[in-house]
């Protein structure tokens, strides 16, 4: 690969570009007008503005992105996650234009992108799935009937989507029509397709997923599980690996099913096979995420593999050098997603200006971030700001390391999830590993940041008084400002030249 265009923004664009730089491959960034000067634009070797902020006119504009790739001589495109990552039409257009799409082939992606078709295929291959509809629909009346026949509660999902968008659980018959139409609207606006389907809702499940890597020569390995049970609005916010719920036998069984799923779908490149694990230990195939996942860094930490570099190598036709029997999990890793959301107010997104950021650093801490002091969080994009990832020898130590890192993470100007997540890390039920997808509603429904009776408030007030130096007696640290600096004088001067 000579040059890679990264068709994304924020932390993931930056993550991909860092891998490219280390591999010696130049990168092309694309950006919307509101992202001018953002971190991925600064980092790339070249950057091209592709349109105004609304995604349809920029990050989802297939024609414009392909045109940019050709213009700048990019022979490969990395889509990151979200936007065009799981758009099979985009993958097909790339191959038509002889541009390598760094991800699965468009046929496998189309099959897996259609949740109903992929369910049917997996049932045929003997993969366990959740009982539910075998065909999607968009007629409210017939969907209502399906739901009552199946028995409530049911889960409504967008046939063309993922990531929790357009997903709703319906427990009561009177809510059926409203919830179904809301789900269809969300599906339409998020994925351009309002087809939805229903499946039985499983109470208190764990969300377990397996990372797989598949090369173009028929070799497939799994890189073990990630548990992503801590969710709000059916979207993950904390992920960890290994999962406390898997015995070595169950891990091996689920891992081999994950590989079978990938093989059945004719899948190549990096992907994630998602399962629900119920309280009795039964597991059900949910779907395949045909992309690099938001939470991929925890697998990298525990297995010791760079997944983005693997993606690039696989896409350029290399054989997998990893052998299943040589892969091991070492230690424990946790990721917390830092969102521009208000955890006190039902995780409502908070757009606005970030005035100041100070990110935690230290042994075993990785912060994949797309924000900086002074950036604007736009209403047009997903509210993810950054991902804090820690690794430590044991789960207990990893929880402590994460809580401590979160409590050093300062983001001023907007509401974020940092304090909330620190409290999750210290909650007894989390520490005991009693996690399920309803964990947040069960334990954190009325969460408020703890106020404490410590000295923090008075110290904060002192800082407020000192800010802007309106108060007397604030000392400035560091070297005194040079009054006669040559940089500040209007006269001509030269550096080190002969005079």
């Amino acid at each position, binding site marked *: 690969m000579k040059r890679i265009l990264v068709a994304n923004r924020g932390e993931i664009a930056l993550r991909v570009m860092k891998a490219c730089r280390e591999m010696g491959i130049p990168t092309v960034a694309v950006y919307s007008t509101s992202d001018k000067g953002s971190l991925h634009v600064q980092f790339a070797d070249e950057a091209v503005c592709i349109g105004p902020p609304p995604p349809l006119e920029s990050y989802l504009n297939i024609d414009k992105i392909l045109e940019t790739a050709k213009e700048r001589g990019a022979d490969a495109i990395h889509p990151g996650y979200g936007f065009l990552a799981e758009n099979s039409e985009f993958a097909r257009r790339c191959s038509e234009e002889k541009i390598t799409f760094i991800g699965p082939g468009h046929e496998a992606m189309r099959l897996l992108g259609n949740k109903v078709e992929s369910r049917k295929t997996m049932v045929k291959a003997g993969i366990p799935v959740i009982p539910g509809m075998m065909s999607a629909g968009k007629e409210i009346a017939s969907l209502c009937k399906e739901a009552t026949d199946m028995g409530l509660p049911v889960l409504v999902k967008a046939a063309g989507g993922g990531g929790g968008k357009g997903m709703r659980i319906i427990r009561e018959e009177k809510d059926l029509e409203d919830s179904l139409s809301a789900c269809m609207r969300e599906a339409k606006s998020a994925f351009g397709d309002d087809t939805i389907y229903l499946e039985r809702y499983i109470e208190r499940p764990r969300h377990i997923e397996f990372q797989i890597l598949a090369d173009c020569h028929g070799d497939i390995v799994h890189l073990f599980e990630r548990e992503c049970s801590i969710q709000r609005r059916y979207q993950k916010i904390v992920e960890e690996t290994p999962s406390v719920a898997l015995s070595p036998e169950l891990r091996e069984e689920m891992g081999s099913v994950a590989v079978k799923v990938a093989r059945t779908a004719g899948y190549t490149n990096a992907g994630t096979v998602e399962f629900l694990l119920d309280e009795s230990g039964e597991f059900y195939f949910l779907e395949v995420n045909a992309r690099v996942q938001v939470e991929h860094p925890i697998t990298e930490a525990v297995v010791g593999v760079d997944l983005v570099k693997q993606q690039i190598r696989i896409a350029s036709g290399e054989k997998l050098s990893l052998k299943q029997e040589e892969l091991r999990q070492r230690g424990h890793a946790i990721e917390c997603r830092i969102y521009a959301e208000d955890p006190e107010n039902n995780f409502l997104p908070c*757009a606005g200006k970030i005035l100041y950021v100070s990110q935690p650093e230290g042994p075993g801490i990785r912060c994949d971030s797309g924000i900086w002091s002074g950036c604007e969080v736009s209403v047009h994009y997903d509210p993810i700001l950054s991902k804090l990832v820690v690794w430590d020898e044991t789960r207990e130590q990893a929880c402590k390391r994460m809580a401590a890192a979160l409590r050093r993470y300062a983001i001023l*100007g907007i509401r974020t999830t940092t304090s909330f997540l620190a409290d999750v890390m210290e909650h007894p039920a989390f520490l005991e590993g009693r996690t399920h997808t309803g964990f947040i509603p069960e334990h954190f429904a009325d969460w408020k940041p703890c106020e404490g009776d410590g000295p923090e408030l008075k110290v904060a007030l002192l800082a407020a008084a000192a800010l802007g130096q309106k108060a007397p007696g604030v000392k400035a640290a560091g070297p005194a400002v040079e009054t006669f600096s040559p940089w500040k004088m209007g006269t001509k001067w030269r550096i080190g030249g002969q005079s």
Partner: protein
Amino acid sequence: MDFEFLVGEKEEKLSVEAKDGVWLARFGDSEFRAEVVTVGPNVFWIATSDRSFSVYAAENEGKCYVFVEGQHFCIEKPAAQTRRKIGTGGTLKAEEVVGAPMPGVIVKVPVRKGDVVKVDQVLVVVESMKMENDIRAHGEARVKEVHVKAGDSVNFGSPLVELEPVS
């Protein structure tokens, strides 16, 4: 020098006096000495007699955001804050303009002028950042005016509906 701040709903008073490079501060019933050092435009090092703190602070639109030991504070001058208008028992005591909590597009307005709404009843559905968000009534009230319709774009704080007390 005296300062009056609002932290959440609570008024806090702080007075400070500089002496020999150290602040003598009075907060509530306590008096204490503090050394306040500006490390950078948004970074302070504050030392009291028994502890020292690394503090981040920034100001925007009359609000001061401060981070101390894992706690984020939003500190306002009292006049800048709008009083909450909800009485006890979940009924609205005075007229209230419900503003958009975020910029976005109106999906649905399930209430009409003259409707009486209950606590937590959905007034407006706003789509923002690809999610639908329900804007609910804080208390029982009557809808005095509806300012938006489906499809409208709204900015942060744009008036959505006006509510008035029921009786």
